[in-house]
Structure formats: structure tokens, C-alpha cells
């Protein structure tokens, strides 16, 4: 295909420059000539009622040659194209006219282009990919402040119903809440929200009352799922409501309801539904129900999402050695791995579990994968239970897979507190029945001892 050359045909004109452009534009459209006449350039400072020069760009095989499509149209017969810029000089190059014309769009002198800024594209950050980090200390006023913001975040999430991970992150940012991945995880543990398996979407959970163990004769429940200010006010009209901040304030407070008897529940739900249109589900004793239906660890592993098509030689790998991720050459050994792009130095592309028996890469919550890695490396997983206080202590370094931990959290509606001993940092779960603790520990192959915590 012959190469097309661009040259300019120059004219002199007196009249309104804007109208001139419109007139020529219409003709080019009418005869479909844009392929041959792509641009019109005006002399800088062209004004109405003063003569000015303008140049039509022509694309043709040879400089100075008018394509037949153009000559056969009546474009060049327009009165505005009757006076050549320089007699007997039909052809200009861009270099020849550059100093006297602006870019094509300088029709309006006041044109002020809108600045273009590229938006930095970040590689997708999986909300399930966490890095274990011990908690920081916070003052009680910090706890109140953050707690309130987390409650606001959850009101906002409830008002939206569902959304994308991007929108979740932006909302956290707007409310000044750091570490949105951890916030999302805590909301899942508390039964407030659910995320899609790939982490790209979230939806708030139905409003429900979850029965928890009571130390008095009353029936106690915690509120899970969607809520707003109106709901809390309405509940306060009918029952005793306690608002308990999470230990570090980094999640919405626990809303605990006390009812004299179970019979009050249908009436309460009906009042709420009829007055503010929110349906409340009686979810029962979810912690125990969940513990019962959860599978044993190995079955849980089989149900993890497998990722296909990973070519290990294309990436660099770090393997979890029981304490930290250490650089390794992947040789098919079972374990938890960080997958790094060769060019990426800030953070791993993703964290996965490799099962050599099935030769599959599996994806799941970060702590769950770490627990699997510990289990497969035969590290003893331990816990301590105090039957007098109904508290269960789990080493922070052996945090359970998320759904199992959710069963513990829903026993009280509260996230674990932290306790440091000489050997370990412990996660302390409250209001845990012995039956619940035993059931979960059996399924996770955890050896338990009686404790005084």
C-alpha cells in the first residue's frame, strides 16, 4: 500500500473563523472526505472582519496531488477557498506553516485544555490477603472514636446492601478507617457481611438475632446483619439493649439484647417490621449450629477454591516456614506460599496454599491457609479453655480458619481480646460453651488444656 503524505493547501480569508470551520466541516461530512482532508489549521489570532490565513491538510500519495474524491466533490469550489495563501505556491509542509498556525483546535483563543492525569493502576489487592500483625494499643477515647466510625461504616454498608471491594475501600478511606481488609474480615466474623469467594464483591447479611449464652435468667441475643440508627432506637423501645464496644473499637459495637422470655421475640420482630419495615430473623444459637455443620479440617481444605493455570516458573516464591515467609525455589512441596511477580517488590501478587497430593493451588482466607500450613507441617496446634469463665484462648500465631473463628465470635457477638504471656500472644474468646469449644477443636485437630485465663 503506498504511503500517504500529508501536505497543506493554504488560503486567505476574511470573515468569521468559526463559521468558516463549520462551513468546511459540513462539506467534508457531506462528501465523506475526512480520509483525505483530516484537519483544518487557522492562523494564530484569526479574527472576524480581518483577513487571515488557513490551511487544509490533504493526505495523498504525492505532495501537491489532490485526491480525485476531493476534486470531484465541490469542497474546493467553496467561495471561502477561492483565494490562495500564496499565488503559485499550492503546497506547504507542516514545517513551513508551523510557526504561523496553532494546533487544529486553536479556533478559540481562550481554549484552556483540561489537564490529563493518568490514574495509577494498582494491581488487584485481594481482600483475603492479610499479613499477620499484632494489634496496637489504643486509648479509650480512640476506641470510642473508631468504634463510632465503624458503626457509621456499617450503617452505610447496610444502606447500600451490596457493592464492590473498591467501594468498600473508598468508604473506609472517607471515614478515616485504616486497613480495610481487616475491617472486612471483622465484619464477616461478626456475621454482618459476606464477601464473594474472589473478594471482589460484598453484601450485607440479613438482620438477625443470634442467641448467646446468658448468665442470668433472661434470654440474651446479639444483633447481626444490617442495621441503622432507627432500628437501634426501635429495639430500645421494647427491650433492654446494651451497646458494647469491641475491645479495640475496630469494628461496630456489639448490640446485645435482653429479653425476659423467648415469647417476646415474635412480638418484637413484628413491631420492628411493621413500624420501620426491617424484618428480623431469629437465627437461633448460631455458634453451636455452625460448629455442628462445619466439616473437619481436611474436608474444609478440599472445599477451598482451586486456581488453575499457575505456571510456577513465571514467578518468584516465598514459603511459610512456620514463622515467616522465606524465599524458596518451588519444588512442589505442600505449604503456604507467597507468589511474587519478578518485577514487584512491594507486596506479593497473592498468597496460596499448594497441596502436593492433588497438585492444586488453593485459595482461602489468610489465617485459614496458615492454619493448614501449620497442620501439614505437623506443628502442634493448641488452645486453652477455662470452664469457669467460659473463655477460650487460642495462640495468635495459630488463628483459626475464618468460619471456625466465626463460630467462636458469634458465641458472644464480640471479637477476641488480646492477652500476652511470656510465650505467646493469645486471642481470648468469651462466652464460649464447653461443648462449642470441644466440637470445634476436634474438627481442627487441636489439643486443648484447661487454663486459668
Amino acid at each position, binding site marked *: 500500500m503506498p504511503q500517504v503524505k500529508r501536505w497543506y493547501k493554504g488560503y486567505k480569508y476574511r470573515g468569521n473563523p468559526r463559521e468558516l470551520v463549520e462551513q468546511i466541516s459540513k462539506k467534508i461530512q457531506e462528501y465523506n472526505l475526512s480520509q483525505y482532508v483530516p484537519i483544518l489549521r487557522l492562523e494564530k489570532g484569526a479574527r472576524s472582519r480581518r483577513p487571515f490565513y488557513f490551511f487544509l491538510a490533504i493526505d495523498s500519495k504525492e505532495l501537491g496531488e489532490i485526491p480525485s474524491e476531493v476534486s470531484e466533490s465541490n469542497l474546493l469550489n467553496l467561495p471561502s477557498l477561492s483565494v490562495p495563501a500564496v499565488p503559485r505556491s499550492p503546497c506547504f509542509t507542516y514545517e513551513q506553516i508551523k510557526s504561523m498556525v496553532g494546533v*487544529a483546535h486553536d479556533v478559540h483563543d481562550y481554549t484552556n*485544555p483540561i489537564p490529563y492525569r493518568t490514574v495509577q493502576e494498582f494491581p488487584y489487592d485481594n481482600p483475603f490477603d492479610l499479613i499477620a500483625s499484632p494489634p496496637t494499643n489504643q486509648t479509650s477515647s480512640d476506641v470510642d472514636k473508631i468504634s463510632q466510625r465503624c458503626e457509621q461504616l456499617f450503617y452505610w454498608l447496610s444502606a447500600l*446492601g*451490596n457493592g464492590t471491594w473498591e467501594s468498600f475501600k473508598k468508604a473506609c478511606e472517607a471515614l478515616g478507617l485504616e486497613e480495610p481488609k481487616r475491617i472486612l474480615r471483622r465484619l464477616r466474623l461478626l456475621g454482618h457481611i459476606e464477601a464473594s469467594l*474472589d*473478594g*471482589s464483591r460484598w453484601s450485607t447479611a*440479613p438482620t438477625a438475632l443470634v442467641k448467646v449464652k446468658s448468665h442470668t435468667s433472661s434470654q440474651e441475643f446479639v444483633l447481626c446483619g444490617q442495621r441503622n440508627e432507627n432500628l437501634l432506637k426501635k429495639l430500645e423501645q421494647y427491650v433492654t439493649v446494651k451497646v458494647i464496644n469491641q475491645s479495640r473499637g475496630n469494628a461496630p459495637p456489639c448490640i446485645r439484647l435482653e429479653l425476659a422470655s423467648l415469647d417476646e421475640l415474635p412480638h418484637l420482630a413484628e413491631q420492628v417490621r411493621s413500624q420501620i419495615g426491617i424484618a428480623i430473623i431469629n437465627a437461633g444459637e448460631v455458634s453451636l449450629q455452625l460448629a455442628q455443620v462445619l466439616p473437619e479440617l481436611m474436608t474444609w481444605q478440599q472445599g477451598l477454591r482451586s486456581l488453575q493455570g499457575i505456571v510456577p516458573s513465571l514467578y518468584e516464591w516465598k514459603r511459610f516456614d512456620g514463622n515467616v515467609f522465606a524465599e524458596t525455589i518451588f519444588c512442589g512441596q505442600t505449604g503456604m506460599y507467597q507468589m511474587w511477580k519478578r518485577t514487584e517488590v512491594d507486596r506479593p501478587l497473592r498468597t496460596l496454599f499448594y497441596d502436593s497430593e492433588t497438585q492444586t493451588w488453593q485459595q482461602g482466607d489468610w489465617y485459614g491457609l496458615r492454619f493448614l500450613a501449620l497442620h501439614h507441617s505437623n506443628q502442634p496446634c493448641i488452645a486453652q479453655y477455662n470452664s469457669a469463665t467460659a473463655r477460650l484462648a487460642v495462640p495468635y500465631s495459630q488463628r483459626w480458619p475464618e468460619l471456625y473463628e466465626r463460630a467462636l465470635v458469634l458465641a458472644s457477638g464480640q471479637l477476641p481480646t488480646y492477652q500476652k504471656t511470656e510465650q505467646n500472644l493469645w486471642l481470648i474468646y468469651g462466652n464460649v460453651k464447653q461443648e462449642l469449644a470441644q466440637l470445634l477443636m476436634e474438627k481442627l485437630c487441636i489439643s486443648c488444656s484447661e487454663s486459668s485465663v
Partner: protein
Amino acid sequence: MASYAEWNRALVTYFTIGVPRGTKIYLSVDDEVLERIGRDFLSSPVGGSWREDFRAAVREKVIIEEQVNLTNLQGLNFDGFPKGVAFLGATVLATYQMAETEQTSEQNYFRRLRDILDLPGTGRPLGMRQGSIAEEPLWQDWKRWLIAHGFFPSAQRGRGGSTTYINYPISQALLRRADKDQLLRLFDEKQWSAQWDAMTLFAYVRREAPRLSLHLKQLLIDDRQRYEAVAEAIYEVYEQWQDKGSPSVPRLGGERNRGCNLFSGLYRDEDPFSGQIDYYLYPKQLRGCQLDPIKVQLKDKVHHLRSERPGWYFPLDFTVSCSQLDSGARYQIASPDDLDSLILPSRDFWILIPDPENPDSGVYASWGQPTLGTQFIILCNNKLLADLQRLRDERLLEWNGEPIPVLERSDWVELWQCQVISQAWEGIFVENQVLKDALQPTMRLSISFSGGLRVPQMSAWLEGHSPQLTIFGFSPTVKLQVTRLSDNHKILEKSQSTNTPIAVNFPTAGDYLVEATCAGESSERFVRIVDWSSLSVQEPSSCEVIPIGYEHRICGSIIEPVSEPNLNKADA
């Protein structure tokens, strides 16, 4: 006979229902619109014609002793609708009836209006002596109402002289009766049958502009701000012509049926892990009517359309293939009988913009033309790259990186982070005129909000987390004004640099009007600030559930056996 109040409500509904927020609204009342609206009334029309019925209702309301009395039409009625819309519709109808040869003069306009109101004489009728006191307040009520409901008003005052007030109705009439008849003759001659959408048809009609009437030519070429609305109006005529079996001798005048197809846009979904991009059918609602339920047959499955937001149904769980993108597609609508097909138009390109109601969601779809300063994605056949490169070379359009191929073994590519950066596109000529029309900005100013904490369902921001404001435009500065609507208190009035975000302190929850003005052009946006207590609880449109083994699943604290179909809320 329908009452004035019934006509008033029906007109407001017709022009705003099924219309996406952010659309410029034209009160383009004409005979066909009145016939369509009338069919939904339970009563019989006066004289067998809904046009006559409408005229009678307006006359009964506003003519008192042969004088026009508009004093009772100011403000809102009990339903919250502006009371004067039906009267304003009558003024637009007067413009619609102006003949091809008729000059747009005050004298001619009032002659037509007097005909509609059955008033003898010439010139401004008694009771309407001063436009600023008589009809202009009604236009202002309509404008405020549109802004408050998330639409853009389009009615404009004239630039002085005799057309100052009559320009309001003139700016609303899109196609006159004579224009429609001319278009029908054109369709008949051309016998176009491709699966185009409105803007593509518009481009084809525009090629014929030199042979069309002066008024139609002006609509097709001169007034860029009205392109989209004119294209929709032309498409309605085209659909009517097609519904009549594309007759070789089009029937002029008389009753015309409405088109009965739904159109689909594209909804883009990107897999965050693999980066794979899929496009889904995204059906658009039909303007002016609520049809429910709608069932569409896609291959072997029937899909129910559910309303997602004004103007749009939820995207269908049906990925669009390369061949469907290439040549468009038509899917049968199983019910209601009034509707025929869901059409994915055949296009060479799609412009996918961030969700205007939730720009932070990371989702892109064909929600409309990008406003100034908005970055968007162009999905196009790679044969358009030469045209796009020309626009880029001339610094009219910019994008980031190289074209990204999408859909395996196809000619389709995506350009990311596209942005229009200049306004003067006139001197650039490209092969694909539809592409240029779609990208060329129609406004010189645009008000954009970013950040803050937005509540999409309420089109509002939360108190204490109001948005930043950016005026995008091609002038270095504009006049910016922010008014609290409850007491008309100006909370901000200053000269503001364009293209720079600023923080505005909205002092209390409430409704605010943001106005930017420069060189005779203005842009307005409505901002609603709500307090936390006004947040409601919204049932998720799609609910995430986590499987537990093979027999159960959990959503929050609710455990269900897998056999149960969904997580419905139930009584305790």
C-alpha cells in the same frame, strides 16, 4: 375528559419515568406524545382526540374571561409536581405546530398559542403581558424540580429582544410536525433496515442534511447540545415507520404507534484475578412507561428484567460474544405482548463510563456520554484506531497506554483512562462521524463531585463527608455559587479556577444548588446532604453466600441447607 391535574401529572411522569438521572430533559410535547399519554387515561377524550382533550383541560384551567391566568400555577402541588407543566406543554405544542416555512417570531408563536387556547387576536394574550411575571416563573419551577430529581433542565431564556421568553418553549420542541413528515419520506426512500441505535441513525440522517428542511438541518448540524435528544426523537419516528412495516408510501399525520423494542447497553465486568473482561447485556428502560414484568428469551432461558435504577434494568447474566458485538443482536421479549425485542445495537464502538451514581465502584457501563473531566473506556473495533489516534494527535482526546485486545480472536480493543481534553473539535475530520459525535463535548462547563461518602440510592452525601467539587471547563476561571435551597442562602460565591478540586463546607443537611457560570454558559448541579439517621436498610440486589461443606451455606449469621432456594427474610 382528563383534568388539568391529570394531564399535568401524566406529562411529568412521561418525560421523567424510565429516564436515567443526569439526562437533559426536553418537554417536547407534540401530538404523538399526547396520544400516547392519553391512552392510559380511563376517560374518553374530548372530540375523540387526546390533543383536543389536552387543549380543553388547559383552557379550562387557565382561561378566565378570555384572559390567561397563570397565578394559580406557580409552585408545587400536593404530589410534589410543579403545577405549571401542562401549561408549559401547551406552549411547546404551539412551537411544534409551526410550519416549515414559518419564521420563529413572537408574532407567529403567539398566533399558534392563541389557536391552542382558543383565544382570538394577535400577540401576547391578556394575562401574559410580561413574560418575566407570567410564564417564566413556571419554567423556573420546572427547572428546579428537574434539578432536585437528578435531571438536567434544558429550557433556556432567549438572548434578549422579542425572543427572550418565547425561547423557553422553542428550546423544548425538537421535531416539528413538518420535520417528522420529512423524515418519514426519507426512511421510505432509503429503506434502512440495519439494527442501529439512535446515534448511529442520527449520523446517517445527518448525511442527508443538505436536502432536508432548514429547521431539520439546524437540528442535525448546528445545535450540538441537543444532539442526543434529537437523535432519540428521530429514532422514535424511525421505529414508528418500521412498525408500520416500512411502508413505501408513509402515512402522513394521523395516529402513529410507539416503537416497542427495548435497547441494551453494555455492562463491563473485569475479573480481578485473571483480568478477564466480560460484557453483559444491560437493558435500558423505555421512556415514559412502566412495564412490569418483562421477560426476555435468551437462548433457552427466560430472564426477568428487574429495575436497577431510573432508566436501567439490572444487567442480564448473559455475556456478549464477539459476533454479537460485531453485528448486534435481537432477543425476543416473551412478555408483555406490547414489547417485541431486546436489541443490542450494531456499533463499531462503545463508550463505557464509571457508574455516575457510584464512581468509586470500579464498574463501567454505557451509562451515557462522559461529562468533562471524566475518564472512561472506549471499547472499539480496531479499525477505528486511526480516527482515535488522529484525535489524540490533535490533543482533543487522551488515553493511557496501548489498546488492550479483548474477547479472544476478535478485532475489539479497549482504550483505558480516556479523557476529552479540548473543546474545539470542529477543525478535525474523521471517517467515523458517529465516533466524533459521541466524544465531542456538548458542554463547555461541567460540575463534578468526587470523594466524600455517597449514598447512591438517595443521590446524596452524608453530613460531614460531603464531596469535593471540581468545575471542569475550558476557561481558566468561572463564577461559582452554592445556594442552600431551603432559605436561598448563598453559602459560597466566588471566582474559581477550573479543573482544580475544592472542598466546600455544606453547613447542614439539606439541598444545595451549585452553579458555575462563564461567558454566558452555565452549569448547575444539585447536591443533597443527609444526616446519618436518614439512612435506611437496603436489601442486597445480589447476596453473597459462603458454602459450608456440600450441604449448608451461610450468609452472616444465617445458616441454611443448600436445598433452600434463597435467603429470604422471614418473621422471627
